[in-house]
């Protein structure tokens, strides 16, 4: 390398980088540590950083008191279910736009993207009233349907950018060999784009898991996912920090791990391919 950095300078940059990263990450780490404290240790002054009686009792209590597993179950069902259905609708659409584009395909893509720009409050009232009349408030079906629609444009967009990278010749070869369209999509296109589909799903699941406008407004108890469960801690009784921390750790851990795997796709998915 032409640039020769002195060892001192390099050590300085390294230390600075670690401090900055640590500060950004700290609230998560602090939540994690607090989740193993007793409620008294959690509010102790000065704060107890590492030397306290580590306990798992908060985790047990969170489950016992508020039935954590039911909310977790709802979150899992909603974020996976909605996006599996979304994928079934999005794959054919993305195929069509990538391999059988018409004059209007680009406009159509842009229009789909534009639906994502619509602020949720713009349609809150009619959706709420519609759901109320149809009895869909606080139902997994209703909320799942909304989450599916929220992600549909992103699914189509990401799949479209992945499909565009697949040489069209391969699909045409399959067609020449007499493969039907259904078989072409199922046996040729899908296996070739498994990595793309997987990362699309990952991002979509993360977005659904953390969605907190519609889930807070449309779910009250039965269908409430973890976002709403955590929100119930905003009006707590007595000491609750350790329990809040335990519940929070449980709510974010799975998605944090998934998220770390999907960093690269995140950039692509969230900027609609504008930054690569």
């Amino acid at each position, binding site marked *: 390398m*032409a640039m020769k950095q002195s060892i001192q300078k390099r050590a300085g940059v390294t230390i600075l980088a670690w401090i900055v990263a640590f500060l950004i990450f700290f609230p998560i780490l602090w939540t994690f540590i607090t989740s193993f404290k007793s409620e008294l240790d959690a509010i102790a002054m000065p704060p107890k950083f590492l030397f306290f009686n580590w306990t798992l009792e908060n985790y047990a209590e969170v489950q016992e008191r508020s039935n954590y597993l039911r909310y977790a179950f709802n979150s899992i069902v909603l974020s996976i279910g909605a996006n599996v259905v979304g994928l079934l609708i999005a794959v054919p*659409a993305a195929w069509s736009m990538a391999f059988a584009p018409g004059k209007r395909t*680009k406009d159509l893509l842009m229009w789909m993207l534009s639906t994502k720009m619509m602020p949720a*409050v713009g*349609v809150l009232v*009619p959706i709420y009233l519609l759901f109320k009349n149809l009895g869909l408030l606080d139902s997994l079906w209703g909320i799942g349907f909304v989450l599916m629609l929220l992600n549909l444009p992103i699914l189509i967009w990401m799949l479209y950018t992945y499909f565009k990278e697949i040489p069209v010749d391969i699909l045409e070869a399959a067609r020449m060999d007499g493969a039907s369209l259904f078989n072409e999509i199922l046996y040729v296109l899908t296996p070739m784009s498994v990595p793309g589909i997987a990362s699309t799903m990952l991002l979509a699941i993360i977005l659904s898991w953390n969605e907190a406008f519609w889930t807070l407004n449309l779910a009250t108890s039965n269908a409430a996912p973890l976002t709403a469960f955590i929100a119930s801690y905003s009006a707590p009784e007595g000491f609750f920090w350790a329990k809040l921390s335990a519940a929070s750790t449980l709510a*974010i851990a799975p998605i944090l791990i998934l998220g770390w795997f999907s960093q690269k796709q995140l950039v692509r998915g*969230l900027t609609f391919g*504008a930054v690569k």
Partner: protein
Amino acid sequence: MATQQVTTAGRILVAPSVILLFAWMIVPLAMTLYFSTLRYSLLDPDSSAFIGFQNYTSFLTDPDFITALLNTLILVASVLVISVCGGILVALLMDQPVFGQNVLRLMVIAPFFVMPTVSALVWKNLLMNPDSGLFAWIARSLGFSPVVWFTNYPMLSVILVVSWEWLPFASLILLTALQSLDEEQKEAAQLDGAGPLSYFGYIVLPHIARAITVVILIETIFLLSVFAEIYVTTSGGPGVATTNIPFLVYKQALLNFDVGSASAGGVIAVVLANIVAVFLMRIVGRNLEG
């Protein structure tokens, strides 16, 4: 003809998505527009009547609306400044060849994956509580009296929480853009004896300018709809100090049951978002051509 078949199939396969998205956005939006011209309260749905633009005039002249609009703009602008400037610095730092780069990157991106309700409550309690929060302890250790964050500086508190959520996003996108900077260009600048500042100003900044624009536009769209963070921390208060447009519309619709007025607010939110969206779409659209 095979191609004719493919074209037809393409139309059929894209249809479900188009129909669903149309039903999801355009139809409710039309309903919102329609409701916004009615006097329509859920408490007394039978007395609803057409009143033209009255909801708009009352919404627009309501002092709460002006406050909410200002709050929305303050929130969006502050978070943008903090997350973009901070994001550039963090991205520059993470782009350096330092020990444990991958781990650092994971730590920096992590807050983005935390659900908004968790971020808000953890910050409000564990960090910003004036009695037992960590910030209070730091303030006392340094000899200051602790700040009563959410009571005395409610908007600043919300801004801090939301900035923490979006700083990682800006950092990640800008880092991705930085990494595509040509190694040769770096060396050429080095050879020409460019100092760090002129190197940043003439080489780095122009290179990541587009990514910065994209970050600003995407964040703006999300920040215009911040809701959960306010819902679980301040409920828009004290008074209307942290009420933004989404929260005001929510309050009108689901707490005051005033469908007409809430709809007018919703339409205004859509107009605001569209102003930003037009610019973003242009950038994305240009990319689609290339």
